[in-house]
């Protein structure tokens, strides 16, 4: 096994584990954060697969903007519930 294969294997297993944690966590905010971590690992996977264009887009949109919008939506939902 080469170094590249080992790294890809580790990242693949981590991707699966984090995806499982994202769908299975009790709190919604934890799900959102796991989703963000999933995007970050996907960026590493894209870079390993020599697709830097996709990696940049995934880093900005997947782990940046979408996470922020989810977090703000959850915050505003929480505020509505407390009212």
């Amino acid at each position, binding site marked *: 096994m080469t170094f590249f294969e080992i790294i890809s294997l580790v990242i693949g297993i981590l991707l*699966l584990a984090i995806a499982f944690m994202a769908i*299975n966590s009790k709190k919604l905010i934890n799900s959102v954060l796991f989703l963000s971590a999933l995007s970050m690992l996907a960026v590493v996977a894209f870079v390993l697969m020599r697709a830097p*264009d996709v990696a*940049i*887009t995934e880093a*900005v949109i997947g782990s940046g*903007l979408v996470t922020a919008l989810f977090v703000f939506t959850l*915050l*505003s939902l929480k*505020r509505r519930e407390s009212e």
Partner: protein
Amino acid sequence: MRKLFGLLITIALGVMIILALDKTSAFPKFGEVDLQERISSQYLTEENIEMVGSANIVTAIVVGYRGFDTLGEVTVLFISALGVAFIFGGTKQKRLDLKFKPNFMLRVGSNVLLGIILVTSLYIILHGHLTPGGGFPGGAIIASSVLLLYLADDKFRSNVKGFKLMEGIAGSIFVVVGLLGLIFATAFLENFLPVGTVGQLLSAGIIPIIYVLIGLKVGSEIAGVVDNFLTEEESA
């Protein structure tokens, strides 16, 4: 029990996907793909790269050969932004009160970071034809800097009307550049400017111009979406 079940399903799906993709003709081993089967070999010849003038072959295909598809993509993003504005927008809006006060560190830190993020986005947009990146990710980075401004100040509203104006102008100039290709060359969105040397900043004809326009349009669009998410209608 439920967790175990979920874990089993996740592992089974993962194994299924890996088995389905492994060593079939559609998914050969990494690095051993015959590119001639996937993209037209015309795109990859050296004289063609010199004709388009873009060092980044992905950009050459996305904006150079398939410029009309990119216009469609921008339209899709515009429609989604329109949908968000249709649901969340209103006449009189104020900032969402999230019971979340930004502290001193967040305010100062975001002021420091804002410039760096904007410069990075400009770099990614302007070098779209040379290095990975381009108008779409660059525009999204602009929008994330606007998001940072919203985070740092709980009273801040960006100039939403200006964003809408910029979005419209950038989109219109994109179409006008395409129509100029119809006039000075033979087809819509065809390159009509000199290509220059491959690898220089001012090269690749209309590709940098289109990517700057796409960057401005995407940035203002997503910034508008961020504003829609963080505002609410004023309860009279």
